[in-house]
């Protein structure tokens, strides 16, 4: 087989801009594909549930523009997965529109654009709930219930290589994908050129976060991955970065429960017997990976449901006696909320920074700091109630009755004498898998010609 080379300039396109110098070095290395993932469930359930992006459009546009201009200049396909953070249909449409706009503004010669959607209707999922193949839970979750489905606002399915391969086979020069497995974006390109599944999926696994597989740490720098028939190599493009055995092997376990398995729609990459070799100061070769096809294709689903409207309040404490009794202060504020709103029908959260604000119950340090900041979140069915709920929970910290406090003019310090409207609260309702007969079923593809 001939050498296959892919560059990845960004591990989450749009989340922070790519670094142009190492990207251009990567482009000068004449890759066969330029590809990047643009999404993550790391950003929490709000963008998916509310159908928004967490990234500014100007950052998305900057990276798409850099990649599109480079890809068209050297005449290789550009591939994007999980468009606009979540990969919902509106995010795919937004990226397609940006590609059209960038092409028009730069007067690019005509090229073929392919795109696919990945939103799944609740009806489609509901059919499976009562069937002989239920919607199985991941990570210890129970099979999906109708109740949880009803509480869900939006669901995306996570594509494997299938829609990308279909669009590559149709000759697309640019592919804008819905929600996708990070590694499938790259694996699809390598498979299209004849790589083995084991090498293709490992290449995807190591490239998906760009320079996270290199050292020293420096995000958003370009890396180049290659398959030459004898394994996978990965090379840092930033002159000060190296892909070392430690950095590449270490990356295999990044953001995964264990370092041995990577599950995708259609199979599992097995990294148990991977062998790593340093072949030049900036390049590591990986061999020994295996791929085990699944007997039944199960597609991961992600779903998010709205919990309520949300406001946030801030309060701080410096008085040592109040700090020592902070739990009683919060209990007072909660009691005032219960008096006003009852005990249920809302959520009220207090994160006490300086005590256990970051780690909660897992915090092993039990001695609080000399000052605390309390972040109060009120979540309720209406904006009006959420605001009053949060205001009650925050302001009543000021009036908490502690028996021996010396400062009786006010129990906390306020940076703002108000509460702030925040994004509505959502929660991850679906983290499950759905069995499908056709791996393309949930990912309808489309093509168009872009340019003059």
């Amino acid at each position: 087989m001939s050498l296959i080379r892919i560059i990845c300039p960004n591990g989450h396109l749009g989340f922070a801009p790519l670094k142009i110098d190492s990207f251009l070095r990567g482009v000068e290395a004449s890759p066969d594909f330029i590809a990047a993932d643009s999404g993550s469930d790391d950003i929490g359930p709000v963008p998916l549930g509310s159908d928004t992006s967490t990234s500014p459009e100007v950052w998305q546009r900057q990276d798409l523009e850099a990649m599109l201009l480079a890809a068209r200049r050297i005449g290789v396909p550009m591939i994007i997965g999980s468009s606009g953070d979540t990969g919902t249909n509106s995010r795919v449409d937004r990226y397609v529109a940006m590609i059209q706009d960038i092409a028009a503004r730069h007067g690019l010669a005509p090229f073929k654009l392919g795109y696919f959607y990945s939103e799944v209707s609740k009806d489609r999922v509901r059919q499976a709930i009562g069937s002989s193949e239920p919607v199985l839970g991941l990570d210890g979750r129970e099979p999906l219930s109708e109740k949880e489905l009803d509480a869900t606002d939006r669901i995306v399915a996570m594509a494997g290589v299938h829609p990308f391969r279909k669009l590559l086979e149709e000759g697309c020069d640019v592919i804008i994908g819905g929600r996708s497995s990070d590694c499938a974006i790259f694996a699809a390109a390598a498979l299209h050129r004849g790589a083995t599944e084991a090498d293709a999926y490992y290449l995807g696994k190591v490239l998906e976060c760009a320079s996270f597989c290199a050292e020293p740490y420096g995000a958003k720098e370009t890396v180049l991955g290659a398959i030459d028939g004898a394994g996978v190599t990965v090379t840092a493009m930033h002159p000060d970065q190296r892909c070392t055995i430690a950095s590449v092997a270490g990356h295999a376990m990044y953001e995964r429960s264990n370092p041995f398995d990577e599950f995708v729609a259609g199979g599992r990459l097995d990294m148990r017997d991977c062998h790593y070799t340093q072949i030049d100061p900036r390049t590591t070769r990986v061999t020994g990976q295996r791929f085990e096809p699944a007997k039944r294709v199960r597609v991961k689903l992600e779903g998010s449901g709205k919990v309520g409207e949300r406001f946030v309040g801030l309060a701080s404490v410096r008085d040592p006696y109040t700090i020592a009794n902070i739990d009683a202060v919060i209990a007072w504020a909660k009691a005032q909320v219960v008096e006003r709103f009852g005990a249920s029908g809302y959520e009220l959260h207090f994160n006490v920074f300086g005590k256990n604000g970051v780690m909660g119950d897992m915090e092993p340090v039990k001695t609080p700091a000399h000052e605390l900041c309390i972040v109060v979140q009120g979540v309720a069915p209406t904006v009006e109630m959420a605001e009053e709920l949060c205001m009650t929970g925050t302001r009543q910290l000021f009036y908490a009755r502690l028996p021996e406090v010396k400062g009786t003019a006010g129990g906390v310090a306020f940076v703002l004498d108000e509460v702030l409207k925040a994004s509505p609260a959502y929660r991850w309702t679906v983290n499950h898998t759905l069995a499908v007969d056709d791996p393309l079923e949930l990912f309808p593809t489309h093509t168009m010609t872009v340019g003059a």
Partner: protein
Amino acid sequence: MTKLSELAKTIRSKNAGVDKITFDIIFTDRSIYEKVLATQAITAAKISSLYGIAQERIADFVEYAPACAIKFTIYRNAPSGSAGDSDIFGAQQYAPLLDIEVPL
């Protein structure tokens, strides 16, 4: 006794999906990695005690020789980004590991 932060190159935490947080302790020197393993200073039981969580909350605990790494993963109490979650990315949960005393 040596602190783990003086022995490992990388000690980090990050989401592994929406229901779990995974922790990576990566050594660059294989002999140090093997010595640390031999001390049994880092085990699932030690993690359970350090973080004050039941062992059932530890989803995986593995020694990963290719990367000279120890890795474990815990279940979250609530999915990432739920209201009240203070660490949506799970990126700041590793700090207690830094001070683990290793008898080397």
